[in-house]
């Protein structure tokens, strides 16, 4: 017969450290009447009657589009001033899109393909 030991069974409340209990006790607890969901707000905006939506339709113009997340890494390689005889092969592997913002001499390259080697001659 299964007989759990006293040590293994702990009340959930006992697992919360005293400091955490104080934080819960002192934290702001909103009253039910103050809580309004986004759905409530939307119904209110559209003019609901007794919580039921009226027969209005919303037309969204244009296609939905995820926002672009752009990261620019300036000065990844800080080098000495090229004297015009340097030839460097760059290879990048990445997800998404990548462009060379600046090769270090003011030139750039867009539409870089992952794994592609780009040979840059400094002149």
């Amino acid at each position, binding site marked *: 017969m299964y007989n759990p030991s006293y040590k293994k069974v702990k009340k959930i409340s006992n697992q919360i450290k005293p400091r955490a209990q104080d934080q819960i006790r002192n934290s702001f607890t909103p009253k039910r009447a103050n809580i309004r969901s986004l759905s409530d707000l939307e119904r209110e905006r559209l003019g609901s009657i007794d919580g039921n939506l009226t027969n209005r339709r919303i037309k969204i113009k244009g296609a939905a589009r995820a926002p672009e997340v752009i990261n620019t890494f300036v000065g990844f*390689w800080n080098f*000495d001033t*090229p004297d015009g*005889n340097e030839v460097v092969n760059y290879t990048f*592997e990445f997800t998404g899109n990548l462009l060379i*913002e600046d090769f270090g*001499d003011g030139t750039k390259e867009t539409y870089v393909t992952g794994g592609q080697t780009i040979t840059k001659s400094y002149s």
Partner: protein
Amino acid sequence: MPGLSVRTINGQLKKVVIDTTSTNKLGGTINASIINDLEEIIVTTSGITSLTGGPNLVKIELNGNNIPNLSSIYPGVSSFTNLDNLTVTNDNALTGTVPSLEENVILKTLGLRNNNLTGRLPTFSDNPSLSFADFRDNSFSGEIPALSTNPEMVQIYFNNGNAGLSGFIPELSACSKLENFNVSGNGLSGRLHDFRKTPNLKTYHAFNNHLTGPVPTVSACPTVITLEFDQNYLSGGIPYINNLTDLKICNFNNNGLSGHFPEVTNLASLQFLRFNKNDRNGSPGIIGAIPDLSGCPILKILDVANCSLTGWNGTSWPSIQFNNIQAQTNLLPTSEVNRILAAINATYPNPVGSGYLINLAGTGNGAPTNGNSNSDRVALISKGWSVNTNT
């Protein structure tokens, strides 16, 4: 200061490879820490003097740059806890010592070949995944660290070329996957390890040390390709090697080995066979006869000089691959010298290129019949061979 800048859109930059092919280098410093997601950075012959890495780097590979010491990899090698490959090679500027690797617990590859590093080798006790450790061509000193906690080890290179390492060859019984082992050119003493513990060995180089004791049971490594035990103080007989069908290089020379020539009827890959000058420790060297060599169809070099050989058991010289036959300073009588010259002459009916050498001269060997006018000797010389015999 000019510098490379890149931009990502809806994605992450995982790997950057920079390889300068021109003589002129851009030099400078790389700050990979600004790309948080970067996992691999490889920089070849670009003259950089430092690298700052991010927390997610898995691979750092720097070859032929101007890194002054490993402290110039910021914020420190020990901070790269996700690293499985640290390679810094062929850097003439790289000096100093190797830092502790105890925080790099998932490290698999550690390549520090051909720098100017000094001090003691690091310990590997906290790197159980380490499979490749290359410290060759530096100026290390002290003992080789223990390898008892490295079961994944496949390749070990501690050959310095400057007699820097001392002490013993470590116990390798935990390294059952070991394939390549090189400790040549050091000041190691003691015995060779037990080859039965490393059955997957492919190459083993322990030449030019102060090793003593017998040659181990090399037949326990049936796929071995290279065995180089030469220039030590090994004693006892030459072990059985006839099951080593992949064996290409077998150098047991310049030791104190003795006994008869081993059986060589099944060595289809053998190209270099050297038992010469086994007179250390007062040893008489190899005795008896040179065996029939038809079991070594692509042999190129046979060096049995300075032994105590009295004959040759073959009837025809087996191969046209030979270009270097050295059996000087043995106990070969005139009849055996004649037979060897005639057999080689018959095997090579046409002129040969440069570098073809036969040496049957030296104390103890007989002169061929008619001395320098021996017809086979004259014929071989006319075909381009360099022939050295007693007169």
